[in-house]
């Protein structure tokens, strides 16, 4: 970035850094005011550090903390960090923001589960699972937008892929065939999008919306016409079972969170790593980014802009297909109408939050997955916060991120613009 070459901070940067500091101060105070005030003394909160039965991980003692003291401490540290940020500014403000946000969540959990216990590892491992379709959708978005093609049809691609997976897995009694069918379906729909958007320069938004509407209609139709009448034959594939990775799954905390998952979750994590390497350390990745930023320059240097775009969009669709398979053969074990429920769109939010990088998108997806599982968990704890507000969290966070409070996220320069070769 350009900041490396600037020795003196610009006034605008100082102002932004001050604003960040004030936000941190406000969060610190909010921790105290929301959770600390009026707290009965002597309560403790127990954080469970072990997953449920059946896990191979080594058991470790659960952590029990005094509720009030924890909240006061977290509040004080946040206020201190905020004050330092206002006065001097941290070099890596993003890390500090992340830290304070985490403090807020821990304080909230300590308050919500006061006098009870809360399985921290349990919720983290379910966050990873729930983050999986979001992350896969985000990776699809990263691939196609890095090459300059906006894809808002991801939701529809996942929906059709989830149904294709269920039907083919049920018919063949083979989950792997279901997974392949999902991948092919995603790729096929993406190919339609690519062909319309790249070859014919049809508006990419319209094409994406058309895919979503078509997918909603087609899957609902097939579901009510065929699946519901022949449940055993067409809509009963079973699901992928979790596979414990030898040794790694024995690790306390990390084992149950990352290494006792289904093949689809592993695929997601592997794809994050592969895409990171491909995008930033291979010639293909360089070409992809060039095509997304300045297609004309890339073309002049002999890059086939159209080919790069086609390949990226179609492979992205294949990844969205895996995300679709998650819903049916990866978790629910059957198809329900519109079961993707906006996860494809949240994936786009994760992509932006992650600044169009695979790893960033993955971390953002984890955050959204956490909000999702928290929402379920809090209903069990009978916390008086409506579930709708917790479900809103990912969207509100995305809006705040987009508004530029936590640093600017900017799309590839040629994102959404068809390339005209002359």
């Amino acid at each position, binding site marked *: 970035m350009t900041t490396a070459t600037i020795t003196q901070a610009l006034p605008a940067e100082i102002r932004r850094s001050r604003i960040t500091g004030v936000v941190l101060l406000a969060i610190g105070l909010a921790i105290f005011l929301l959770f600390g005030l009026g707290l009965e003394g002597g309560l403790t909160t127990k954080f469970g550090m072990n997953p449920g039965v059946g896990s191979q991980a080594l058991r470790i003692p659960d952590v029990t903390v005094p509720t009030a003291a924890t909240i006061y401490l977290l509040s004080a540290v946040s206020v201190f960090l905020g004050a330092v940020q206002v006065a001097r500014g941290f070099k890596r403000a993003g890390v500090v923001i992340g830290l304070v946000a985490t403090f807020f969540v821990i304080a909230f959990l300590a308050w919500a589960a006061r006098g009870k216990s809360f399985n921290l590892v349990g919720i983290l491992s379910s966050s990873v699972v729930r983050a999986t379709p979001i992350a896969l959708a985000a990776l699809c978005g990263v691939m196609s937008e890095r090459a300059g093609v906006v894809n808002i049809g991801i939701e529809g691609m996942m929906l059709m892929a989830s149904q294709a997976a269920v039907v083919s897995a049920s018919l063949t009694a083979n989950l792997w065939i279901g997974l392949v069918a999902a991948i092919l379906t995603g790729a096929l729909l993406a190919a339609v999008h690519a062909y319309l958007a790249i070859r014919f320069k049809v508006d990419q938004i319209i094409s994406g919306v058309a895919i979503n509407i078509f997918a*909603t209609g087609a899957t609902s139709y097939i579901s009510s016409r065929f699946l519901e009448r022949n449940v055993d034959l067409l809509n009963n594939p079973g699901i992928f079972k979790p596979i414990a990775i030898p040794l790694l799954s024995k690790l306390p905390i990390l084992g149950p969170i990352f290494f006792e998952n289904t093949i689809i979750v592993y695929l997601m994590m592997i794809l994050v790593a592969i895409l990171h390497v491909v995008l930033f350390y291979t010639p293909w990745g360089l070409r992809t980014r060039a095509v997304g930023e300045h297609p004309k320059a890339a073309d002049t240097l002999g890059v086939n802009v159209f080919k790069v775009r086609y390949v990226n969009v179609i492979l992205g669709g294949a990844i969205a297909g895996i995300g679709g398979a998650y819903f049916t053969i990866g978790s629910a074990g059957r198809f329900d109408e519109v079961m993707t429920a906006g996860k494809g769109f949240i994936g786009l939010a994760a992509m932006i939050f992650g600044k169009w990088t695979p790893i960033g998108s993955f971390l953002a997806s984890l955050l959204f997955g956490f909000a999702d599982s928290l929402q379920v968990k809090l209903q069990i704890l009978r916390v008086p916060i409506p579930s709708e507000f917790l479900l809103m969290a990912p969207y509100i966070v995305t809006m705040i991120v987009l508004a530029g409070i936590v640093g600017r996220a900017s799309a590839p320069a040629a994102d959404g613009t068809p390339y005209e070769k002359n």
Partner: protein
Amino acid sequence: MTLRDVSRIRLERRLERSRAAAFAIPLLSLILASVFGGILLTLAGANPFETYRAMLVGAFGSRYAISETFVKAIPLMLAGLGVSIAFRMLFWNIGAEGQLAMGAFAAAGTALFIVPHIPPGLALPLVIVAGFVAGAAWGIIPALLKAWVGVNEIITTLMMNYIAILWIEYLFYGPWKDPQGYGFPGTAEFPAVAWLPRLANTRVHLGLLIAIVAAAFIWLVLSRTKWGYEIRVIGENPVAARYAGISTARNIILVMLLSAGLAGLVGMAEVAGVSHRLQKGVTVGYGYTAIIVAWLAKLNPWAVLVVAFLLAGLLVGGDQIQITMGLPASMALVLQGIILFLVLGGEILTQYRIRLARPAPAPRPTDAEGAPS
């Protein structure tokens, strides 16, 4: 034809859009879509001719059917108009769904909590204004973010849909739920003074008139005013607009106020004109279908009204075949999707012409390689 002959078919860009093609191709796409749909219906074990007839009768076959089609068309008309004016200047408002949810929220709040305390004559105007203002307020956020900070509006409008939908769900499942509603997710019924008046014994309501007035207003603005001229210039050539001293930021904000306000009116019309309460099912995707309406209508306000009516006919007809033929109502959505793709494809043909390349005079070297020597 051999494969090599096929490869000689080429698409050439038309220098000028032919007028005849502009009319013939959408029509052809429609006919092709019916054929495709017919094949699907046959595969599903239904008689396509009977099904289409049932759909037509269900949507347009009687006074009642036509009135029901109008009821479905009103939200598509208003939202389609709203979306189309934003698209005119290449502002991608995908947020009509959320804006209509907020319009429904404000209209319901006004009708339930303010109307009982004001003179009855003020009730209706206030409900209508509340719907417009709330939609516009929801739409102004992405507009400001775009105008001031340059944030991409596609994502912000999309994100705000979910926030708005969750917000109204919270209300009608939670604090606004009708205590006498037997657990049904919805508010109490609005006082009758806050209902939109209906047209002679049908369910068609004042919203239709609002939509027609809105279409006329947008048409006037676009074709007769300086503001409309600015919008068109920005849409057709943003760079030229900047050189001409047209403020893009100001226009984004103004256009979104109108666009989102119209979407807000959709929500208002649905709760005050149709259900008379805020309940589950206000947000059924009108905001997204509106995008298709606007696009199929080529952003022309009068055409939006016509396309909205026809698409509404497809949806109502789809509901009818569920009742009369026992086919899933989602068949209408499938048909809608097929029509959409074919019109997208047809659009290509208005811009390109198919040309058969002349046979190559001499065999190319690649051909000789495979030939026996």
